[in-house]
């Protein structure tokens, strides 16, 4: 059996299941309690689970992420919600220097079974300071796992294995996806280790993740109308990258466009391209193309913001550029 629900509802269900099923799980972050979550992911949780387990925090990412690490070290399974990746920069020291390193620094004595969730991405006219896509920065760090659920299924299914992971997991939820609806199987089980083929094709592989996935699928649909069959790969897990699936797509299609809302310079797409060079160079029939955000602060004005971000038309143009 399947049923239809939104990304937001799926994420809420996943957290509800975790809270109801494991007394060690609790939720902490700005406005998660009385307000019901900035994006209404935890609506009604305070009434149901009480203030001990649904904890509103002060506006101090450094403080409450650190508290989450401490709780995880003490045996709890915290879900820490950082409102957006933009504010997570204040908690970088906790995440990079503490959470990611305790296992190593303690010689394996400590583990930090912490889940940090945050919203990422642009596209809603929130201006430069609220529109960053910095998941590539986190994917740079050994010691943490980085997830980017882009489908309702992953929104529903990724949290449970993330909580079961003995090491820190950072989950990036793209703000443009929250109202996306999809079919969900009742027995939804997903892994947090592999990339997935979201559309089969043979002429070109479009490799993407997160908020760019629907754009890549739209581009593939347009291309299909012109007899160009694009395969769409959803990375899902940004660290560690599933190199085997990427290399298999290159071997199948021989042409690749990487779509990533990060900026190009030093971004995640650059890493994907480098992996292709290392693992699938002789399968390439054209240079790998990238469609990323323009290297500017994300503009506020709608038309400029749209122009700055990857769009289906840009993806279509990049694909055609590879086909001669």
């Amino acid at each position: 059996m399947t049923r239809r629900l939104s990304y937001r509802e799926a994420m809420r269900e996943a957290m509800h299941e975790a809270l109801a099923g494991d007394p060690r799980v609790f939720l902490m972050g700005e406005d998660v309690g009385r307000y019901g979550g900035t994006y209404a992911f935890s609506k009604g949780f305070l009434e149901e689970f009480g203030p001990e387990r649904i904890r509103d925090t002060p506006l101090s990412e450094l403080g409450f992420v650190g508290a989450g690490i401490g709780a995880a070290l003490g045996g709890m399974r915290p879900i820490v919600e950082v409102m957006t990746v933009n504010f997570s920069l204040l908690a970088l020291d906790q995440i990079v220097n503490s959470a990611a390193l305790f296992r190593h620094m303690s010689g394996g004595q400590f583990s930090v079974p912490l889940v940090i969730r945050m919203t990422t991405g642009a596209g809603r006219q929130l201006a430069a300071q609220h529109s960053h896509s910095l998941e590539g920065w986190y994917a740079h760090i050994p010691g943490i796992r980085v997830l980017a659920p882009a489908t309702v299924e992953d929104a529903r299914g990724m949290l449970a294995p993330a909580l079961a992971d003995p090491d820190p997991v950072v989950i990036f939820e793209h703000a443009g996806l929250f109202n996306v609806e999809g079919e969900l199987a009742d027995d939804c089980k997903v892994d947090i280790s592999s990339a997935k083929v979201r559309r089969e094709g043979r002429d070109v592989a479009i490799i993407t993740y997160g908020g760019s996935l629907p754009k890549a699928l739209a581009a593939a649909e347009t291309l299909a109308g012109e007899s160009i069959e694009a395969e769409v790969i959803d990375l899902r897990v940004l660290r560690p990258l599933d190199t085997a699936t990427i290399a298999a797509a290159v071997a199948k299609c021989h042409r690749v466009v990487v779509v990533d809302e990060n900026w190009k310079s030093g971004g995640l797409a650059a890493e994907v391209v480098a992996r292709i060079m290392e693992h699938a160079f002789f399968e390439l029939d054209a240079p790998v193309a990238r469609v990323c955000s323009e290297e500017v602060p994300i503009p506020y004005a709608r038309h400029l913001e749209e122009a700055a971000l990857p769009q289906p038309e840009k993806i279509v143009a990049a694909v055609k550029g590879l086909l001669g």
Partner: protein
Amino acid sequence: MIEFKLPSLGADMDEGTLLEWKVGVGDTVKKGQVVAVVDTSKAAVDVECWQEGSVGELLAEVGQKMPVGTVMAKLLEPGETAETIVGTPRVLPAGRAGATAAAPPPRRMISPAARKHAQEKGVDLDKVTGSGPHGAVTLEDVEHAAAGLAPPAAVLPAADKAGEMRRAIAAAMARSKREIPHYYVAEDIPLVKALAWLQAGNAKRPMAERLLPAVLLFKAVAVALKRYPELNGYWRDGGFVPAERINLGVAISLRQGGLIAPALLNADAKPLTQLMQELTDLVRRTRAGSLRSSEMSEATITVTNLGDQGSQAVFGVIYPPQVALVGFGRVTERPWAENGELKALPMVTASLSADHRVSDGHRGALFLRELADLLQRPEDLDR
């Protein structure tokens, strides 16, 4: 050693596909000789070479798509031979044995997958024509070669051709409106004297040599431009560069849609009969798709003449990097007041679209006045 490069045959051309070489290695090339036929997005164009020499090496292959500026061939200058070139240390790196006459040609673009596949199948890549971006050899090219098939067609089918033309026009016109601050002026010009003079002259000519009104209009534009050099030239690198000659780009619509504006060269200096012959020839060759590169790239201003099926006036979009466009509407009989009298006269509305970075409306208006005056003395235009 002369490098013959793919010329830009218009502001909207970024790359071209070699359709045919008209010369072979060892042939002598004269200045202005057609050496190759290149497919732009608009037409198959005969490309001329403007230097003299003999063909040393042909680098571009038929079917190859290449960006503007690609070295297509190497010519030996008079007195040079392949051997003297080899002996010239500045061209050839020392110690490179068995090299060709020039610096090593750029490494051919062959995709990694194509190279690997060619090795597996024992395909000689030197014999494979590339159909990928910039003429790169792709996996498909090697597969075709391995199967003993012809290379995939590099020349676009007709339907795609129309799309290419549309895209090329879109790019040039969008650039024009983005970059050029146009101003527009117009003038109604009585043609009663001009048409009477043409009619009288044509009565004495054989049918094949009769003059169309259009040719008189074009000649008048060319003559008027001599006193308004700021309308004849190019905007380049942030400044105006006046043209030395007056080459009228004549907008010619194509039956399959779209248009091309090849040039009537030195239009101010040619008698009307010659101009008429050249115009007829130009229209015929444009529609047949056999234009020469100089005609495609050397227009210094564009003239659009709507003719009998047009509207009364036209305000055109300048073709960059040109700085002006003259438009003629349909010749119609209209009321005209002169010396306190109202008459019905054949009239044409002439318009000027010009680049305000280079000229001002006042000068533009004077130019149209001059054009109107010249058309009142048609006999003076036949020189």
